[in-house]
């Protein structure tokens, strides 16, 4: 278990190489992959999140850790899948039609990925139809929409309307965010959740998982 403690540390320090090595070793020693995830990887990312909240870490440190985590998961997930274990939630994400801003969207994607979610990033300037098709095809648990302009915010509503029209609104939880968006607006257009920061998005998604 000392080795596994080192795995946690490698994740926290963003040492992807060590994290991958230690994960491989643990799997070779037949440690239950679920235990690795639950007891070492996720607590490590929680610690990273905590340090970010306390202004000890910045996003770059958080992203390095997330990348290390992703590397470990690439070894673990196939095993879990082969055992028929359900992976953590799948998230389709994109910036809505007419809007090219992607830093916020990318950050949310990275953080969710670091938290173990599977991300399908549709990019920017994504039409409602594209979102609908992707949801039909990928069957995600979440759809995350981003907008940075007051004039593209209405595209969020159009996307939700398109989901309704396609009869798949209830198949997915819709999250919205971006500078001009507010919780009030999220409520107005019938979204399921809103976060005012990329770091808040992980907590939001987790809270909606239960």
């Amino acid at each position: 278990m000392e080795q596994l403690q080192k795995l946690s540390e490698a994740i926290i320090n963003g040492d992807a190489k060590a994290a991958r090595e230690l994960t491989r070793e643990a799997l070779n020693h037949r440690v239950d992959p679920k235990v690795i995830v639950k007891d070492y990887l996720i607590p490590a990312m929680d610690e990273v999140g905590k340090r970010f909240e306390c202004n000890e870490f910045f996003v770059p440190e958080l992203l390095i850790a997330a990348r290390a985590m992703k590397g470990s998961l690439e070894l673990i997930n196939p095993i879990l899948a082969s055992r028929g274990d359900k992976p953590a939630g799948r998230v389709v994400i994109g910036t809505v039609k007419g809007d090219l801003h992607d830093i916020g969207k990318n950050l949310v994607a990275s953080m969710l990925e670091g938290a173990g979610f599977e991300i399908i990033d549709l990019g920017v300037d994504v039409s409602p139809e594209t979102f609908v098709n992707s949801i039909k095809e990928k069957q995600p648990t979440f759809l995350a929409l981003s907008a940075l302009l007051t004039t593209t915010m209405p595209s969020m509503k159009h996307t939700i309307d398109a989901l309704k029209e396609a009869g798949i609104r209830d198949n997915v939880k819709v999250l919205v965010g971006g500078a001009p968006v507010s919780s009030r607006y999220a409520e107005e257009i019938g979204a399921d959740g809103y976060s005012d920061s990329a770091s808040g998005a992980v907590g939001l998604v987790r809270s909606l998982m239960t």
Partner: protein
Amino acid sequence: MTENRIAIESLDQFIFGRCPSPVVCGKGVEIGNGRVIPEINFTLPTMEINTSTWSDIRNQYRSMIQSVMKRAIELSVPSLLVEFETLPPMTHNFEWAREIIEILSEELHNSHASSGIKCALRVTPNDTREFVRPPLLRQGKYWDEMMYFFENAAAAGADLLAIESTGGKEVCDEALVNADLQMVIFSLGVLGCRDMEFLWNHIVDACNRTNIIPSGDSACAFGNTAMTLADQRMIPKVFAAVVRAATIPRSLVAYEAGAVGPSKDCAYEGPYMKAIRGIPISMEGRTSACAHLSPLGNIAQAVCDCWSNESVSNVRLLSAFAPVVSMEQLAYDCRLMNTSLEKSPAEAYLFRDWLVQSDAFIDPQAFILHPEVVLRISRRIMSRSQFYDRTVEAVRAALDELSEAATDGMLSLTVQEARWLDRLKDIADKIPDTENQMVENVIHNAETLKFIPEEYGLAI
């Protein structure tokens, strides 16, 4: 490349309202000739832009400009600049932009005719080239649209043109969230500068042909993105401060290509443009808190020639619609600066110094705008003549200034910030010495980095 001398040699030539090369434009507006003037911006509230909302949109712009000009006249504002920053659909379809430009220009004409107020219209289309990813920067539909816009804005009634161009942004975005200084330098010092040169030669050419003033460009997509991320505590402030420095050579390219100012309001690299090129600059600070928060509320004002609200959406506040509120705030700020200018230069310097001292030592991003720091870093940048070399020099000079100020205890940094400052210095030491080397290191990664070398005149 340009000569290496800088236009403003000493602090007592470096003040708000005055610059070595004033600009005259529109209906009698003089910028940088002894008086700070307001630059007012406004935009639509939450709404869609399409044919069914278009008549409402026209009405909103009409009522915004009317109410803003009414208040400006009531407050005896002698002279002002109005900026119309288009929304992307108006860059895609110039006919929409034309209608709004005509409305604004007509109302400015009416205000001028009825009250004598001096005014000019600056129009800023969007850089829509990144609507394709990776961006096509020198060809294609979006390039053509933008050029069409530049060719036709003057006829619609615009007096000045500007842009917030984005060449290199596709690489810089990732570099910012990763605090990757090397890639920041590549994106600004290689890609950004190259795109600026290509783009601004075209813009200046179009402006000269259509008789409109090529005003300036903003590294908003780089420097202000970094500032916003730092303000949300996502990236270190020292890093954001260094990114600001890295934008200087990039934005300078516009003026070397023939832009004459005023620089764009959101271009916080403006004081450097003024110091190096002597052009008038537009700045925004506490009065643009409606558009974005910042650690630069007062210091931004220190050497401005236009003072702006950046942008405000047309929502109702208790007193009036928000654009009118901005107009009033800008009017009073300018009155105050101009009162001190009219008294005596010595008094205006005092005012400038308070503006500086009230912010400069609280935040490294403000420190980088300290007029003394601006002059020192400007000299170091202009000691080099290549884009890339200047960018590396700007970064190193900024790091040196920050380290020294932190060591002296003048600038207070948190433990985390201080740690990052050291880390950035280590990285800066290892940055390739020449552009060629830098390009060689990076170019094989172009696909992963999502940029097209040819669009920057780089051969693979």
